[in-house]
């Protein structure tokens, strides 16, 4: 179904030396389960993308009949504008800040959150406040799909990951010469901050990159 799109993008990307693709077991699994859930429900599946607006995610949402919300929290919080030699966030964002940053609620709960290369650049307290904010917006059982670095270093600036196929991610940006030690946080610390979002699967995308799928267990978790 996505063949021509993928083919065109591969052709475009093949001229880019920084192109790298990551087959994503996490997304494949997530989409499979979403399809099963979707056949059992009446309302549309709602996806919140915390990252920047991406044409490919928009296309996927249209194909799968999702409702898409885009938050672009990194640019909104001016995280990228910070000193490029320092790590950006220092735990300054409250739940209210996140509420103001995320698109307005429309009364229907969110079923999946995409957090690609976001947590790496947030303070651990910020991840906690974001999680609490998302908890109020998400349906129990909602997915949280995250990409984090697991190698010895990671770029100082967030990279933009995109979809090549529904279950293949890619990046085409050059990785900055400036790096910082990685992983930013251990998985246990991240899990603690995410509270009711409980890790279900961790998949290695490559030697330095990992995708994590969390499930929101509800406020009682």
């Amino acid at each position, binding site marked *: *179904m996505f063949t021509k799109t993928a083919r065109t993008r591969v052709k*475009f990307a093949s001229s880019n030396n920084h192109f790298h693709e990551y087959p994503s077991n996490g997304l494949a699994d997530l989409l499979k389960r979403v399809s099963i859930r979707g056949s059992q429900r009446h309302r549309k599946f709602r996806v919140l993308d915390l990252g920047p607006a991406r*044409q490919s995610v928009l296309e996927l949402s249209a*194909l799968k009949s999702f*409702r898409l*919300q885009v938050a*672009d929290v990194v640019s909104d919080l001016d995280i990228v504008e910070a000193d490029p030699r320092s790590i950006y966030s220092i735990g300054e964002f409250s739940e209210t800040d996140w509420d103001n940053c995320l*698109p307005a609620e429309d009364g229907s709960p969110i079923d999946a959150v995409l957090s690609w290369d976001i947590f790496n650049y947030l303070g651990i307290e910020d991840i906690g406040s974001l999680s609490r904010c998302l908890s109020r917006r998400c349906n129990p059982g909602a997915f949280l799909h995250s990409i984090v670095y697991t190698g010895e270093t990671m770029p100082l600036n967030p990279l933009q990951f995109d979809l090549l196929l529904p279950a293949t991610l890619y990046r085409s940006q050059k990785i900055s010469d400036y790096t910082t030690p990685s992983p930013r946080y251990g998985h246990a610390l991240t899990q603690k901050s995410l509270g009711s979002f409980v890790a279900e699967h961790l998949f290695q995308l490559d030697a330095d990159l990992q995708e994590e799928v969390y499930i929101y267990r509800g406020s009682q978790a």
Partner: protein
Amino acid sequence: MWKRNETATASAATNGAANPSLAKATPGDFRSRALVNRSSTTPAVLGNTVTIKGEITGSEDLVINGHVEGSVSLGGYIVTIGSEGRVIADLYASEVEVEGSVDGDIVAEDKITIRAEGIVSGNIKAPRIVLEEGCQFKGSVAMDSDSSRDSYSSGIVDIETEPVSQTAASYIVNKDD
């Protein structure tokens, strides 16, 4: 040409004859390359020194390089927010192209394009939507073949149709083959 409400403060700027910034533009004035190709008529241009508060309606294409607060409704026509344009308003048109900034909901009968330098905060709805890489967008997206004025201020709606879209690399993507 403009339907203004009582609070409109555009003063002399709304008079195209008195202010050349609102006069008919020559093709060389267009910021949108695509617009030249798409439209057989010359669009009206709000110059970058023009500020309008109120309701804009009409029956011709419009390029906004100035500052608009209120609402813009040009069903059947193309609205382009130029790179210097700043719009705090809900927009309704056949096509909307954003190179500047928009704070408000956008509903298009045909297509919405947010260029790489465009900034949009609000819900967008159209049968075809193009988000160029690098654009800044925050809000909800609905791709619906029935982008009628009835849904002008209704917020997000279900995604019903499949898009034929275009990427920043300007290639046509047709996903159904």
